[in-house]
């Protein structure tokens, strides 16, 4: 079966009003989520942290406060949209595959993730609930990505790219889970190889970006696609040349990357990854993949908040949507004109 789950003309329409309503809502929410997630990444997680370098007077101060204030609202809205969207996607998934046991199992795990993700901010967030949330989230990631990676029907490069992303996340989560486990087990030593695992995962992130391009970015590549990604990459290079220490700190706090590899590796990975996003978003056939790649970028590597976990899970779900999620074709004129 080819094409995107949303626009593939050969995907049968289920004729279900509930499904169609959910699909319409999901599409709208995803568009908003991409916009506000990127907004909070730039305005809150980045700009709010470089305030120490900005002149403290007049128009600059007013602009800074306005932008960071909007970034704070964008964070709240993005976190709400992420929860709503993932919930709707789980609901849509059950409508399509309600008779399948793996489908129910996946839905249960995702529902638990959502429930904990919503509850944790309002209850005492001690070690056990936090560990449980991380464990469920990792389980969900494996359950979503593993079938895609093991399916021989999917293109090899795409399977490889997703496998690298999954393994990178497992490397990062090893530190979180191991550290929490040691605390619960009452052990007084540091878990072995947590930092090397982080380093390996960070290297895999760079490789996966290249593989993502090879898997999704080559088809339909046009010259104009190069412009935005090149501009952003050049901007990063300029910032690094200007103040490498601050850029490294921002990269760690924004994305969880320490930048221990040569800068050229990160620049190439970023350039190819952004290029892939732009190519996919410019084609309606793979809109979900493009959105998923954006959300992966916003979620980052270290997943410091429940919001970032939910973003990462939603991103993986969108990327593998043709395997799990069945969304009717938008061209069905009976229901979408």
């Amino acid at each position: 079966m080819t094409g995107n789950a949303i626009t593939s003309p050969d995907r049968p329409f289920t004729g279900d009003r509930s499904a169609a309503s959910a699909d319409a809502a999901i599409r709208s929410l995803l568009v908003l989520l991409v916009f506000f997630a990127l907004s909070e990444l730039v305005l809150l997680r980045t700009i709010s942290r470089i305030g120490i370098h900005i002149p403290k007077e007049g128009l600059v101060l007013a602009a800074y406060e306005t932008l960071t204030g909007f970034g704070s609202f964008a964070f709240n809205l993005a976190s709400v949209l992420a929860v709503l969207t993932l919930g709707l996607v789980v609901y849509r998934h059950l409508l399509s595959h309600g008779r399948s046991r793996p489908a129910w199992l996946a839905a249960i795990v995702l529902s638990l993730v959502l429930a904990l993700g919503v509850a944790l901010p309002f209850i005492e967030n001690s070690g056990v609930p936090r560990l449980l949330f991380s464990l469920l989230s990792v389980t969900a990631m494996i359950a979503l990505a593993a079938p895609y990676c093991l399916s021989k029907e999917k293109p090899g490069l795409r399977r490889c790219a997703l496998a690298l992303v999954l393994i990178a996340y497992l490397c990062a989560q090893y530190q979180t889970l191991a550290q929490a486990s040691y605390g619960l087990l009452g052990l007084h030593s540091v878990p072995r190889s947590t930092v090397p695992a982080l380093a390996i995962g960070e290297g895999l992130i760079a490789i996966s970006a290249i593989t993502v391009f090879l898997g999704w970015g080559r088809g339909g590549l046009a010259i104009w696609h190069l412009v935005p990604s090149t501009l952003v990459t050049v901007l990063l290079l300029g910032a690094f040349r200007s103040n490498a220490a601050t850029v490294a700190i921002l990269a760690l706090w924004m994305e969880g990357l320490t930048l221990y590899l040569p800068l050229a590796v990160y620049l190439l990975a970023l350039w190819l990854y952004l290029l892939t996003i732009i190519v996919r978003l410019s084609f309606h056939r793979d809109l979900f993949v493009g959105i998923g790649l954006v959300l992966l970028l916003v979620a980052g590597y270290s997943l410091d908040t429940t919001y970032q976990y939910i973003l990462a899970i939603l991103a993986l779900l969108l990327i593998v949507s043709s395997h799990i999620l069945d969304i009717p074709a938008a061209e069905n004129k009976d229901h979408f004109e």
Partner: protein
Amino acid sequence: MRNRTYTYRGWSLLAIVTAFGLAAGLTFGDLRLASSQTLILSANQVQEGTAIDGPDDPIWDRTTPVEVALSAQNIARPMGGTVRSVTARALHDGQRIYILLEWNDVTQNLSSQRPQDFRDGAAVAFPSVKGDTIPSFCMGQINALVNIWHWQADIDRRDGPATSTYPNMVSDGYQHQDEVTFRNPALAVGNILGEESRGSPVENLLAGGFGTLTTADAQIVDGAGRWRDGRWRVMFIRDLTASGSDLTQFTPGATISVNFAVWDGEVGERDGQKSVSQLIDLQLTGQPAEAAQNVDGRPTRLGVIFIIALVVLLGGVWYAVLFGRGRTRPS
């Protein structure tokens, strides 16, 4: 047909309005629909009055450490290469909090007397005002100060007089040399860097947005550092509560964001050129530190339950993967 379209648009609009409404409510209520999932540094409690004799006290071996990654060194070649990290431990006795940092540093850099010399250092940073439930984004914000404890190796080791570095230096006597204004202008204006013998190697600082790093009026943080076999161990001590609204207040049972910074003088790190860690959570627990000992090596009951739950969860995933591979999509 048009009714169906309006229905679908209606559901979309409802979802969007709901999202905006919830977000507005969260913003006005100063709440977040996100919770921190970072590492937790647990500061268990020791008996009040327990003497902790520096960074080598055996009690530190009975705490649960947390190893946190640092941003890469990007000043001197070869830049990066390996991921740096710092290991943190914490304790409190109901009156004071103790934080221990350890990190690898091949060289011990104690002097900053020559322009080309830079000292090793370490810092612990907290938000002055308790942040919300997510890792604090307050660094650099105009309305949220950061309280920084900055340990400096040269102050700790009482860096010797300038003549120890420049043995041939000579200074003539001059008029008013007994007056501090002329002998030590820095000290005269209250700059602690001008103090000839500081009581503590840890400087208590406040940082607001826009380059306002300031020495706090109250220098109430003590500390000590020890370098051995390519590894620094530095201990910070402060009372849980401190006078001054801008200083961080610690409350047993509460959780606060913290992060760490390390300077390697050998590669020229100083001021803003440093390696900084991720933001993690420091939790002051009421659990006795002595009871946390796992001296017999057996897991706790909670640990056993956790392991069983882990096995069940992973088994479910394996089950789903096995059945998922065998499924084919309907045509």
